[in-house]
């Protein structure tokens, strides 16, 4: 392993590769920051550029773009509540309120430190555990995945704190409905496609995120023209405030970061779950861990509420490289694009990559450390300058958001129909937003819905229709008990409080 690390360092520290890390991180940050352009689009745009590179250089560039985009995505989540990256949706829950309180610099600093810590800690995990971790993730079966999805949905409770529980649940149902459009993944039967070929592959996740976040946010700003928050928003964009953290905030982060890194990394390693699910789970988990006083602040600018998802989504990025590099299984949509690029380089990621191409395996891991340092520099001292990208007047910003979301979606599919559907969803989402319906539960349900159904049905198929799969294996029992505990705890607490 030492030998591998040395080979990796040697490759990663070559001038060309260092340059690639910097270019990747920089362009990733910019692209991730712009609402409408996520890591998938960013990496897809890099594929033609990297043709002719040697595989490690190409992969290093793309990895840089990937975590750069996740880093940069948090900036737009915090400053304008328009996450460029699905993985940073959860960051906007507390980051945006904090920015509106005039503490944008602080929120950005918390996000940058957490991302750095999450990325670095999990890169160490990756280094130590990559060869053996594939075994852990392989012992997960469909019932366990099903349990994990339910666990993810319990995080909905976190969004219903404003007494909007009913509205949040309605959005969950809407999200599940949207997820059921398209070909059923088990039997190939089209559902809710209205005989329209464009719907038969389902609604793209990027499209729904862009429509319900970037676009509807921009449209809502127009409708709420006389909204008093407008002034605050303009201030928060041009004057970011101090980026210094006080002792209390540092203390909060020190407790949050380790547990969120571990959670994020594990979720990232699991095939099928990625940075998005990790950030939602970490947010939900953090809310259950903190004391009541802090819990009240969730959704209103909590330090923990920013640190947890930011740590977890970066940790999940590193984690998702484990199944990609050791098994050739993409852990997320983004790593799926990278898998395609790797195959284009003539590299078959899989259990044997570790032996056949150790220099690729190790140099990517080593370049992550370099990338994290580059990103910390980009995102802390330089953030006021880079964030100028966002400090564009509203009259420019809104058309820009609309432009990038539309082109971003179009670049993924080259399908006009997607544009119409996106506008339609955005209009509905805008109306819902104006009536205070929360969007995050919809996204969460949309992500988890399809996976949950698939894993449930597969579990039932394997157990010949018996529900005993829920308690047949220790791992499943542990997950199910965790869910019961979390839900039970919430119910118990609400009763307890009423008595007081």
């Amino acid at each position, binding site marked *: 392993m030492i030998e591998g690390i040395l080979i990796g360092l040697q490759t990663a520290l070559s001038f060309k590769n260092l340059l690639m890390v910097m270019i990747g991180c920089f362009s990733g940050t910019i692209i991730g920051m712009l609402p409408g352009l996520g890591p998938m689009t960013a990496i*897809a745009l890099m*594929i033609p550029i990297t043709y002719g590179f040697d595989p490690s250089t190409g992969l290093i560039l793309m990895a840089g773009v990937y975590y750069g985009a996740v880093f940069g995505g948090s900036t737009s989540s915090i400053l304008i509540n328009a996450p460029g990256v699905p993985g940073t949706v959860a960051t906007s829950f507390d980051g945006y309120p904090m920015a509106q309180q005039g503490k944008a610099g602080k929120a950005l600093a918390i996000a940058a430190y957490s991302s750095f810590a999450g990325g670095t800690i999990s890169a160490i995990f990756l280094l130590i555990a990559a060869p053996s971790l594939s075994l852990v*993730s*392989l*012992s*997960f*079966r*469909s019932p366990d995945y099903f349990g994990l999805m339910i666990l993810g949905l319990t995080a909905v409770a976190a969004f219903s704190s404003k007494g909007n529980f009913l509205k949040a649940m309605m959005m969950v149902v809407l999200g599940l409905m949207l997820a059921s459009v398209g*070909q*059923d*993944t*088990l*039997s*190939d039967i*089209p559902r809710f*496609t209205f*005989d329209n*070929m*464009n719907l*038969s*592959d389902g609604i793209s996740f990027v499209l729904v995120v862009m429509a319900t976040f970037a676009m509807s946010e921009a449209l809502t700003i127009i409708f709420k023209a006389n909204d008093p928050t407008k002034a605050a928003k303009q201030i928060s964009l041009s004057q970011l405030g101090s980026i210094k953290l006080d002792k209390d905030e540092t203390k909060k982060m020190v407790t949050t970061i380790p547990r969120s890194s571990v959670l994020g990394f594990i979720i990232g390693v699991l*095939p*099928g779950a990625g940075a998005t699910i990790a950030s939602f789970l970490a947010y939900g988990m953090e809310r259950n861990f903190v004391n009541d006083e802090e819990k009240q602040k969730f959704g209103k600018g909590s330090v923990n509420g920013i640190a947890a998802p930011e740590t977890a989504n970066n940790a999940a990025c590193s984690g998702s490289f484990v199944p990609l590099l050791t*098994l*050739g*299984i*993409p852990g997320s949509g983004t790593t*799926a*694009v990278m*898998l*395609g*690029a790797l*195959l*284009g*380089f*003539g*590299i*078959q*990621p*899989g*259990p*044997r990559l570790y032996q056949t191409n150790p220099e690729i395996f190790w140099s990517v891991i080593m370049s992550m450390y370099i990338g994290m340092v580059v990103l910390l520099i980009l995102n802390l001292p330089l953030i006021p300058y880079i964030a100028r990208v966002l400090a564009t007047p509203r009259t420019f910003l809104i058309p820009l958001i609309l432009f990038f979301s539309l082109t971003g979606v179009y670049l*993924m*599919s*080259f*399908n006009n*129909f997607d544009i119409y559907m996106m506008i339609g969803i955005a209009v509905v989402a805008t109306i819902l937003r104006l009536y205070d319906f929360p969007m995050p539960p919809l996204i969460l349900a949309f992500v988890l819905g399809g996976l949950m159904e*698939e894993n449930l049905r*597969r579990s039932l*198929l*394997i157990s*010949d229709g018996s529900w005993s799969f829920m308690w047949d294996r220790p791992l499943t029992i542990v997950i199910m008990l965790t869910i019961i505990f979390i839900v039970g705890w919430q119910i118990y607490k609400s009763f307890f409080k009423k008595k007081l």
Partner: protein
Amino acid sequence: MFNNLKKLISLVFATVLLTSISSTSFAVDKLHFIIGGGAGGGWDGTARGTGEALTKAGFLKSASYENMSGGGGGKALSYIINSKPEGTVLVQSTPLVLRSITRHKGYVKGSGVLSYKDVKPIAGVIGDYGAIAVAKNSPYKNFKDVVDAYKKNPKSVKMAGGSVRGSMDHLIGALAFQEAGANPNDVVYVPYDAGGKALAGLLSGETQILSTGLGEVMGARDQVRIIGITAPKRVGDAPEVPTLKEQGYDVQFVNWRGFFAPKSMPSSDVKKIEKMLGDVQKTPEWEAVRKRNAWVNIYNPGRKFDSFLKGQTKEMTKLMKKLGVI
């Protein structure tokens, strides 16, 4: 005299013009590939890989690509059929046959179904055999063990595959069980939405056998044991892997990938592309592309390809009726 000279000059011009026209219409030096799926998929890799080899080896001056996803490839197919673009070929594979049979949404147009008959088959270029694999620590050493276990208790053998019921992965396993005298409809097939996930399912122990393409499991041979492939004889890249045929189950199935032209393309052009696709397979440029993708060459041109498609349609229709998917 003067008039004659005029006639002569115009004749010369006409000849020059005519030859220049015919040379542009007969030399295929540019090809546009329509890909019915997104970037990074199997069709995408086949089109881009083939285009790369064709240009690098000097058969083409340039190749361009266009991804047109939707309807499981049906959108691209109907585009080729209806718009009849010039100098354009479509990449397709076994699903073209299967989806026509199952009347897959994207392949249904009005009351009819789009199939390979609506386009001109040029050639099948590469193929992948079906494979049945078990985990390294599985008690099953060969396909007979699996069949025996199945006959004892049909529920004890769960078969994983990387796609829906009625897909290629399902059919490969079903064919093998049918040949072994079992009712393929009684075999529990557990669908996953990607080959990699199905492999993970097998390794986690929730399924006992995996039925998929050989290319899908080649890279995982240190974790799985391939107990049978649907090839007529053992393949060069994996000489230790037995065929189902040598174990007494005469199952042959090849997942082909090939190219199709719109009906409007002149036959002479189709012939030229067909020949080009065959000749390129002898070049080192192709070999480089083939090797890194672990493809198996199955050059299957023109009429042979056409009758192969006819045969596959017939065989698969029969099997799918038995499976109850149509």
